């Protein structure tokens, strides 16, 4: 009797999870499937599969050849990767500083660094725009990178601080006795220990940057510096929308996020510290 109940319970849980997965994946699947269809088929039979006459790669063709899409894609990639690099580097270093060292104003500084979580950076858009223009950085990728780094740092510092506090003090002390400089302790001892956290922070920080439309639109809408989200707009004309191309562009834009996620998800799950200290 119990076993049947257990089994029913597990079936129930799986059913719920499965339907949630389907629900979440449905819009994505719809985009990808329709990107392979002719315009007529997209509207005639939105849920149909791209078979026979409905199949068309025109969307991809026009995205890859007749537009600046590869450049936009490159821009997005540069902005996201560079911002991510700075967020992870400075985030982890700041978190290490406030969690490892005792100094006057430690608590104040950690609160100050984390405060940004509560203040949406978009509130400062006008000021940011003025600043960027004054610095002569309007319409550059640098402007985006700076803003995204600032946007990602508070949450990154918050997560890193929590995890760095849990890194055993004895490992760091042991490295100090071994004669490592504080920088090498950070890079060679602490960072390898928190690799899973780096993956977490990377995934969390990357998605809002990759998907952002706001700052590219305001800070660097120029032809040369558009990102994918902004670039897709070129297919949405005032009178006609090239749906095939829009969907194809979006499908391609999903790829990096997906790849990144696959790479990091292994790290997300694996706890590398097991065995470092007691246990």
């Amino acid at each position, binding site marked *: 009797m119990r076993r049947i109940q257990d089994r029913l319970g597990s079936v129930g849980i799986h059913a719920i999870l499965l339907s949630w997965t389907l629900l979440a994946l449905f819009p994505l699947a719809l985009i990808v499937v329709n990107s392979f269809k002719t315009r007529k088929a997209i509207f005639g039979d939105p849920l149909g599969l791209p078979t026979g006459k409905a199949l068309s790669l025109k969307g991809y063709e026009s995205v890859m050849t007749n537009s600046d899409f590869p450049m936009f894609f490159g821009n997005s990639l540069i902005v996201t990767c560079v911002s991510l690099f700075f967020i992870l580097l400075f985030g982890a270093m700041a978190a290490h500083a406030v969690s490892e060292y005792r100094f006057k104003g430690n608590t104040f500084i950690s609160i100050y660094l984390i405060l940004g979580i509560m203040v949406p950076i978009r509130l400062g858009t006008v000021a940011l725009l003025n600043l960027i223009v004054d610095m002569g950085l309007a319409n550059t990728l640098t402007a985006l990178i700076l803003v995204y780094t600032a946007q990602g740092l508070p949450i990154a510092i918050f997560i890193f601080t929590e995890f760095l506090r849990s890194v*055993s003090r*004895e*490992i760091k*002390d*042991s*490295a*100090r*006795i*071994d*004669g*490592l400089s504080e920088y*090498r302790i950070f890079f060679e*001892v602490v960072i*390898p*220990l928190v690799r899973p956290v780096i993956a977490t922070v990377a995934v969390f920080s990357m998605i809002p940057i990759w998907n952002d439309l706001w700052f590219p639109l305001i800070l660097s809408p120029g032809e040369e510096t558009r990102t994918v989200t902004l670039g897709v707009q070129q297919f949405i004309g005032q009178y006609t929308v090239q749906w095939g191309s829009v969907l194809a562009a979006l499908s391609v834009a999903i790829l990096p996020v997906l790849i990144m996620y696959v790479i990091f998800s292994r790290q997300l799950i694996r706890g*590398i*510290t*097991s*065995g*470092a*200290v*007691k246990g």
Partner: protein
Amino acid sequence: MATLELKGVEKFFGATQVIHDMNLSVADGELVVFVGPSGCGKSTLLRMIAGLETLSSGEIHIDGQRVDYQPPSNRGIAMVFQSYALYPHKDVRGNLGFSLKHDKVEKSEIDRRVNIAADILGLQDLMSRKPRELSGGQRQRVAIGRAIVREPKVFLFDEPLSNLDAALRVHMRVEILKLHQRLKNTMIYVTHDQVEAMTLADRIVVFRAGKVEQIGTPLELYRTPANRFVAGFIGSPAMNFLNADCKDGKVLLNDREVCRSTHPDGPTTLGVRPEHLQVDKQGPFQGSVQVFEHLGGEAFVHLNLADGQTMVAKLDGEHQFRPGDSCQLGIAADKCHVFDNDGLRVAS
């Protein structure tokens, strides 16, 4: 060849004083054990010797050189931590050689020292494993190996065995003793396990609340504890303390004479070790058995004395009691300890 000397060392954390005016000198090749209850400042003092904590005042000399302004790596020390503190992403060989690689020691020299350490500790078969693939005892051996490889003047151990299970702890204790006999280095060993302290130490330093209560060889501390705290701390099971009276140089318990003492007349504290008591029809300790624990070779009797005080005696395994039985115990007069009202031991 290294001596260690602490001169007036003090430590404050904010306004709280954790170490009070600490003076200690450790001879070359000596194994000194720090014991004391949790939170008394043993680790803090050890970390100050290692250079991981600053001194609030005082000086530390290693081998005659003042080192308290030196970074840890220049002091000629190596430290073994309670949690092993191995680098989880490096294999055993990498862990052992890491500090040397950093010191830019030549490759052949690193290999030589790593191999010596691995031989001493029996790690040769484990050299390419990661810490997470090792058992607790093996990890601890790697941690000790990492200290050996540095060829330090002074070894510092901070409760290295407290994460191990009882059997392994006994085994590793013997290993550390062998290691000390083989390397003949100066060692400081922190523990709150008094058995470890008794078996390992050349000298024991007993701490309480950041102050030294007594320094001496294990037997000195066992036989002539300076005060009630040390008497209760050294020896297992702990010494019994009984309220007694002193009259005309005699120590009386429930009006029976136990021993003689120079303590002035009045109330006093009598200390008797469980293992010094034996069944004696004329003995001064009379009471009823509360609990009787038989361990085979030996037995523990928990006694409720006539005046309501309780005590424990360790008897040999011949005896058999049941709860409620009456029991009478005696002790040789020279095994008794008398403490005055300040807890100091009165010389007999």
